[in-house]
């Protein structure tokens, strides 16, 4: 343990608690946003990040000749936009989100360093905190470029993020405020 959060100044423990509460709230809204725009099933994630939505699931390679299909739609269907992330948008998303994920993982890792955990446990939790965003974006890119089956990797990344946060939040809160000796 590089420092001990249990016996740190009250202000430090208050800061860490508020940081965890704020991150937890943002994660809840993150989950809500995922539910709105992508979904929690591999099928829905594949629709969002796959080649071009559900219609293209069976047609991942460009056709040899341009194919035109036509189907009736209602006004409501035209108004509804299926949230589909194409390659350009995924480049932008990766650029925008990866730095913030790194900062969050680093912040949570700093909390881990102040907790009375074994060296191997500390390493494992830090690895989990950084693996989660990598899995998240690797899954999105693999779903787009290789196969919709990789949507499961993105889901694993999302759950790993939630798991990592929960482990740190529970242990830190318990150690800082209840088990001080």
């Amino acid at each position, binding site marked *: 343990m590089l420092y001990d959060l249990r016996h740190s100044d009250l202000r430090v423990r208050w800061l860490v608690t508020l940081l965890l509460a704020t991150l937890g709230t943002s994660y809840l809204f993150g989950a809500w946003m995922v539910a709105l725009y992508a979904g929690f099933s591999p099928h829905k994630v594949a629709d969002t990040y796959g080649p*071009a939505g559900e*219609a293209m699931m069976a047609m991942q390679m*460009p*056709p040899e000749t*341009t194919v035109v299909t036509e189907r009736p*739609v209602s006004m409501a*269907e035209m108004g509804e936009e299926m949230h589909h992330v*194409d390659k350009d948008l995924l480049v932008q998303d990766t650029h*925008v989100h990866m730095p*913030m994920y790194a900062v969050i993982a680093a912040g949570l890792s700093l909390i881990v360093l102040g907790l009375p955990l074994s060296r191997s446990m500390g390493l494992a939790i830090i690895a989990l905190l950084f693996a989660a965003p990598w899995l998240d974006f690797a899954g999105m890119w693999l779903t787009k470029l290789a196969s919709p089956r990789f949507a499961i990797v993105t889901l694993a990344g999302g759950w790993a993020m939630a798991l990592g946060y929960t482990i740190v939040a529970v242990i830190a809160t318990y150690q800082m405020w209840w088990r001080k000796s």
Partner: protein
Amino acid sequence: MKTIMLSAIAAALLHITPTVILVKRQDAVSHLLPGADQFAAREVHVSSADSRRIHDAVGWEPPDGMITFYIGKRQDQVTGALMFMRVDCQHGPLELAVGFDSRGTVRGVEVTKATVEMKPWVLEALRAGLTDAYRGLAVDQPPAGAEKVKPKIGAMPGYMAELIDKGVMHANAAYRLFYVRR
């Protein structure tokens, strides 16, 4: 710790602002396909060769090789077509609805989405009459809305006008190359 704080501030400052709806898609459809009571989606799955062709023409390729035209009909007669076109820039995405009349000229253009940061710039360009410049434009003519409004507006609204020109140019190329092809 200092590095982490600076990185957090940098990441927050570089974050693209959220998207806002300027015109609901349904309203854009009503404005750009007036009188239509039936609609169809014509989905064009573009081949690699055609993707290169449109790229060579206007420097743009349909995202994931797919273009969707929404066609408006009244008593089974086509009244026009519409497509939603996204234009990306470092400030985030813009979405346009570009409508074509049954003669194949531009009926109108609506900016349906922008980001919080871009919204005031886009509105300034629109107030200067940007989209008036597209009405009646033939699909093989280059859009020149930005050129017309730039003397009346600021630098960033002028940049937005250039992006909107670009989106209209991409939509025109898509229409010219793929709409009539069956």
